[in-house]
Structures are given as C-alpha cells and as structure tokens.
C-alpha cells in the first residue's frame, strides 16, 4: 500500500449491477489493479471472482499486477460475450 490517490473506476455489465453504479472516483492506497479489486469487493459488495477478470487501464488492456498511478482510468472486464 502506498500514498492515497484518486483513481477513476468504471463498471460494465455484471459488475455495474453488483456495484450499483457505473462509475466511481475512488480514493485508494491500492498499489495494483488486483489490490484495487480486492478493496472494491470488500467495500462495494462485488462478488465476481477476481481470477476471471481482465483489466483495462486508460483504455488499454493491462495486467492485473500493473502498478496504478494517480488519475488512472480503470475498468475491470468480466468475461466478454460479443458477437
């Protein structure tokens, strides 16, 4: 855990319904996307398993262990179902 900083989080599909909102400005000390998801799970009642998620940071796919920077736009991506 590091210094608290503001991260913009958006939710889609099953996560949006579980979070009850589509976006949050989230003040956090979470170091990585994995840490952030753990925090959101605990505080926002998300139940979707972290192991099945991908993450997008600033509109690019990234890995869950990517370190977060202040102002990052983070979207957790549940299994997709296009087509």
């Amino acid at each position, binding site marked *: 855990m590091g210094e608290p900083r503001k991260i913009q989080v958006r939710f*889609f599909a*099953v996560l949006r319904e579980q979070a009850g909102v589509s976006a949050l400005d989230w003040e956090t000390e979470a170091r990585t996307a994995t840490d952030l998801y753990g925090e959101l799970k605990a505080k926002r009642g998300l139940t*979707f398993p972290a192991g099945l998620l991908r993450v997008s940071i600033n509109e690019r796919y990234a890995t869950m262990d990517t370190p977060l920077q202040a102002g990052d736009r983070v979207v957790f991506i*549940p299994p*997709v*179902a296009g*087509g």
Partner: protein
Amino acid sequence: MFGLTDQPIDSAALHAKLARADAGACVIFEGRVRNHHGGKPVTLLEYEAFDELARVEGAAIVEEAERAHPGSFVTCVHRTGALSIGEIAVWIGVASAHRHAGFLACRQVIEEIKRQLPVWKKEHHPGEEPQWVNCTVEVLPSRLSPENYYERQVSLPEVGPPGQTALSAADVLVAGLGGLGCPAALYLATSGVGKLTLVDVGKVEVSNLHRQVLFTADDIGAFKVAVGAARLRQHNPLVQVEGLPADVTAANVAALVTGRTAVLDCTDNFATRFLLHDACRMAGVPLISAAVYRFEGELNLFSPATPGCLHCLWSGQDAAALEAANNCSGEPVFAPTVGLMGIMQAAETLKLLLGLTPAANFKQTRLVNLLDGSTCAIERNADPACVVCGPDAVQSASAPHGVDISSVMLTAEEVIARAPLRTVALLEDGEILDAGKAPAAAIGIPVKDLAHLRALARERPTLLACRYGIRSAALARLLRREGIDQVYSLIGGLAAIHPRDSRIAADRGFRRHEILSTHEKNARDPSRNL
C-alpha cells in the same frame, strides 16, 4: 474498418462497401439474435459495450486480420443496445483476392471479437431473471480458462503454477513453418506459451501436406503463417499468435529476434540458420535449432553465454558441404523425422522456459536415427579461435552490442555503388587466394589472423569476403562491435560473384548424413585440427 452502433445494422449498405475490382471473393458473416440458448427460450438480448476500448480493440482486430491475410479488406460493425429476435448483432464482410484468405480473415475476426472485444450481452428468458452470458455461476467451471485448460500440466511438480506463469509470460519466435515448425508451434501453443510469432514467406503446397501437420488440403495456396496462426488460435484461444508472411533476411533478423524469450530455428537453409544464430547470440536470446536428413535428425541448443556455436560446429568443414546442404527443397523427407524433431524443439523450449534444462545440453548436439532407433549426444567443439564465441569475441562483449546487421551486409551491387572499398578475401587453413575467383585488387588473409584483419580494417573502409559470406559476416560484426565502423561483409560471399564455384560444390554431391558422421568423427577425434 470497424464501427460500433446503437442503430439497426443495414446489411445491404455495408455490402456495397465490399465492391472492389481486385476482389474475387466476398465473405459475409452475420451474427444474429436467436430465440433459444442452452435449451431455454430467449426473448431479447441486451448488448453493452465499453465504447472507448471496444473501438480501439475492434480496429486492432480488423487490422490484424488484414495483415495476416494479405489482400483482404475487412468491414465490421458491432451493435449495442436491446436487440429482438432476428436482428443482426455483428456484421463482418471481407473482400479478398481469393476465397481462402477471405474465409480465414472472416473467421479470425469473429473469433477475436468473441475473445477480446469488451462487449457483454444479457439474455432475457420468459419468466426468469435475465442473465449475463459467460458470467453465470454455472458456466464458470466449464469456461475456457487457464485453470481448466492447463489443469493436467500445472499438476506436474516440474511445472506448477509458477511454471505456467513463466510459460504465459514467454514471447517465442518460430522461424520457418514447415515440417519442423508446424509440430513445434502446435505444442508451444497448447502448452500455453503466451506469445508466439510465426515467420515464413511460403504458401501451402500439395507436397507440404504429408509432413506439415497444421495444414489441410483446403489450405493449398494460402500463406502458411495465416493458416497456421488461425489453427493455433483454435487449438488454444488463450495464447496470442501472430503470423508474419515474410522471409528472414539480414535486414529484418535483428528486429525479429530481439526481446524474445527464445527462438526456434525451423528453417531448411544454411544462410537463414546462420542469420538467426548470429542475431540470437548478439541479442542474447537462446536458440533451439533442428535439422533433418531423411531418417536422421539433429538438435542443437545454443545459449548466448556458452561457447561452442554454429560457427564452431561448422569450422573446418568443407564449405561445399554447407552449399550442398543449402538447398533442401525437393529433398526426400520421412515425415515422422521432422515431426519428432519439431516436437523435441518444443520440448527443449518449454524446458528452457521452465528452467529444467541441464547445463550440459547447451554444449551438445543430439542425434536421432529413426531407421536403427539409435540416439546419441555428442559434446560440441568450442573453437578457441572462433570469432563469434571464442575468447576474442568474449572480450568484445563489453563493447556496444546491438550492431545493426543490415548496415554490415552488402550485396555485390551495393559494393560497386560504395567503391572504393578494400576487399579482403578470407582464407581457410591451407587455402591460397585463387586470383580467378576474387576481384583483382583483393588481398587474401587467413581468417584466423584476427590481428592482421583488425589492423587492415582500421586503416580504411574494408569489405570482407569469404567463400559463402558466413564467416565474413561474423567477423565484420565482431570488428564493428570493437568500434571499427567502416567494415562490411559481402552477402553470399565470393560464390555470389562466381556462381561456377557453388555449382561445382553442389555437383560434388555432399549429403547431410556425411555431414552428421563428420560431426561424430570430430567429436571422437581429439586430434581434430581446430
């Protein structure tokens, strides 16, 4: 072109975009909303997209398909919002020169959309809570997830979760997608090597099918890497596969190998083998190399840190043997030999990524004979005078490493354009300069007289030429690394200027098994002249 829309998709209007005079085929895929799923009636689908990322990813998917299937032009639109039964959810149209590329490109785009595009759909069933497809508790255990796919491999104590993570972090180049490359790439993909790049300029021919197991009779005429990458993605959608329809050349080899975790040499000619070998050594990338002759196969692991390189392996050999081995097209092939050797390359690559390779393997040539069932491992010679891996080369390792190969290698035409260069013909032991085979002003220097060569190259711009352009390339790069700027190597060597020489070499009929038995003899004969 890729688009997202919340309006009904107008198929006819999109169809008109595919009209091209150079397109002999037009392939269209429409994904439509159907009234049932998993045995249950469906009344409505709600599509939701992460708009910004979907546009970026969608465009990338389309571009990737167009690159993988040259001559194809893709139009793709995905719908969002609430769709009723029969409506089009995704529309893909491909205009291409030939039908094969069109079908492959279309298939690739829809499969990648299902895998990558951040779009979700919610199914509405009569009298039930709507459900997000792929996200319900029941489907999660049967999902195509790494946990499920690699279950039987991760349970090997030698692999385990850390090993599987190492495999998925790996970035491996397979050079040559023939009899060796097909099985090698297949096993690397199914084992979960995270990123695979296939490079081969060839197209599938009828005579390939008996041994190149990624291709079927339907694939004749298509680029090997396009078919191969598509097939590997079908086998394991969890890994990234890229196909480059290109030759490995002096100009692109450094870019191809730099930054890879490992490189597999599955090519069938010596010029490419040496290019890959030298580029890997320079870039610090391990190379897993195999070669076959009929019922016999040979496997070499080259570590950038271990002396005993491809140049050592061939030093002292009659260069004509190289030339004879240079032309493998049309050679008879026993399919299981290439299959086995390709799988051995995959096994060695996986072992390397998992840290399971015994150090001794980096110094060995392994020989397999399927006719008498024998296998043996021979320690490779490390030539102390080797300009690539010997002590001289080791000393120069502290000098800047990334020598741009393309700037070192010159064709005969470029040499003329760059005059005046002093030409130095490199002589093997006991060889004297044959005035009839070298440019008039050339001077002959023994290849092992590194001090003399270094002094000459420092004096003024120098072109090094050997019989086939392989040792001269290695030497030129060595001298460049030492900071001598104006030194070049003649591509193809003196044989390129005097084709008569190479024809004589081929006429002598050197054959692969003679070369293999020479290895054995050298390995057993300590008196071998280095």
